[in-house]
């Protein structure tokens, strides 16, 4: 399978990359790791006329702590996140994306801009309450994770905008865990749940739970969060709260799982994720 013909450019500055998108019109596309876009192009489900490769644009790599948050460059590959334990839940989520080869190439910016409903990082962005920086011809803006994901493969990133960095609040002192349900380890999530828990002694001071692949966009399991916040972190209370994890969701059935089964998985994955957050 070979992609349809296209023009290619690898600009050396952010300004030039944005200009290339503007000049390239609506069929121009950014290329980061290529691990979502190239498979689509090989299947001819995407046929951009111009690829603007970000690989030479400086300043889009790396992880830096600034006060209470991490600044993560958009081109940072999953593999680098995986080996950055200071990122907490984000490192744990990155570690189970596909396989090592894919994690070497795929980038956080590409994953968030693409907005696949089964992708792992978006739900973690919701519960860390991350923000992304978008740079376009008309300047720069910030978008919260809650406003970033709009629909299947549709995000707030404009056609002429580059997602340059992600601001991840450091959840110092919170425990975290990610439970992803799939049949083979390199597969996408059938359903997954991530949790971050702030315990005060044995009491749940705060908790956030994110769900992957339960809708066109990542979700917060707010009913479950509300049920646990302020409560004793006992197995019974965790189980009771997790029973509410699928509340208000209506995930479409697909080849892997029916609506009912996905809701069941959400409850089980949420319970495991909350419980394991206490240990880590």
């Amino acid at each position, binding site marked *: *399978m*070979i*992609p*349809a*013909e*296209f*023009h*290619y450019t*690898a600009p050396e500055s952010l300004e030039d990359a944005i200009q290339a998108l503007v000049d390239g019109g609506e069929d121009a596309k950014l*290329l980061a790791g*290529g*691990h979502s876009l*190239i*498979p689509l*192009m*090989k299947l001819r489900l995407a046929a951009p006329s111009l*690829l603007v*490769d970000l*690989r030479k644009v400086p300043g889009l790599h790396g992880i830096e702590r600034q006060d209470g948050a991490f600044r993560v460059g958009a081109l940072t590959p999953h*593999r680098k996140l995986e080996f950055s334990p200071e990122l907490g839940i984000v490192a744990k989520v990155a570690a189970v994306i*596909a*396989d*090592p*080869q*894919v994690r*070497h*190439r795929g980038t956080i910016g590409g994953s968030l801009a693409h907005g696949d409903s089964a992708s792992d990082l978006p739900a973690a962005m919701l519960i860390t309450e991350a923000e992304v920086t978008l740079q376009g011809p008309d300047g720069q803006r910030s978008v919260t994770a809650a406003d970033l994901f709009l629909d299947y493969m549709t995000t707030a990133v404009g056609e002429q905008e580059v997602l340059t960095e992600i601001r991840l609040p450091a959840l110092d002192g919170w425990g975290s865990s990610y439970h992803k349900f799939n049949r083979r*380890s*390199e597969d996408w999530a059938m359903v997954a749940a991530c949790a971050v828990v702030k315990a005060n002694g044995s009491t749940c001071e705060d908790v956030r739970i994110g769900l992957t692949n339960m809708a066109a966009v990542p979700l917060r399991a707010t009913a479950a969060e509300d049920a646990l916040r302020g409560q004793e972190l006992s197995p019974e209370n965790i189980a009771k709260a997790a029973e509410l994890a699928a509340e208000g969701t209506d995930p479409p059935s697909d080849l892997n799982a029916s609506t009912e089964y996905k809701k069941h998985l959400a409850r089980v994955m949420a319970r495991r994720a909350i419980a394991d957050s206490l240990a880590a």
Partner: protein
Amino acid sequence: MSTVPVRLNVNGVKHTLEVEPRLLLVHALRDKLALTGTHVGCDTSNCGACTVHLNGEAVKSCTMLAVQADGEEVTTIEGLGTEDDLHPVQEAFWNNHGLQCGYCTPGMIMAGAALLAENPDPSETEVRHALEGNLCRCTGYHNIVKSILDAAGRSSSEVSA
């Protein structure tokens, strides 16, 4: 369609190719440089038969454009060892019967070698995780895992079925 120049350092040899931007790295290696040790299995980023090293890291060359490797170092199975001086992972696959039909083998060896470069003393679980992106239709993986542990200097009696 216009072509663009791509400079590739493959197995220590520098090449400059004029390629269409849509040329995949695996096709550049196989069809332009006649390095046919890198296989195409699934062509959909799943099987890992096309695994090569890009600056020392395992990547799937069916899911990269050759232009994305411009200026970078690529190592293929041909560059890992020589017939007289096999790479320890190659030697271990031979000694432990780590292959049957051999189709997945170049990718398995490249994935295994990348693991050992990063983690010279992996556990069996770590080896299995490192091979998540590589599929084998023949062996049931047992001897593949055994081979990689052997290359790491671990006794194969430590490997459970």
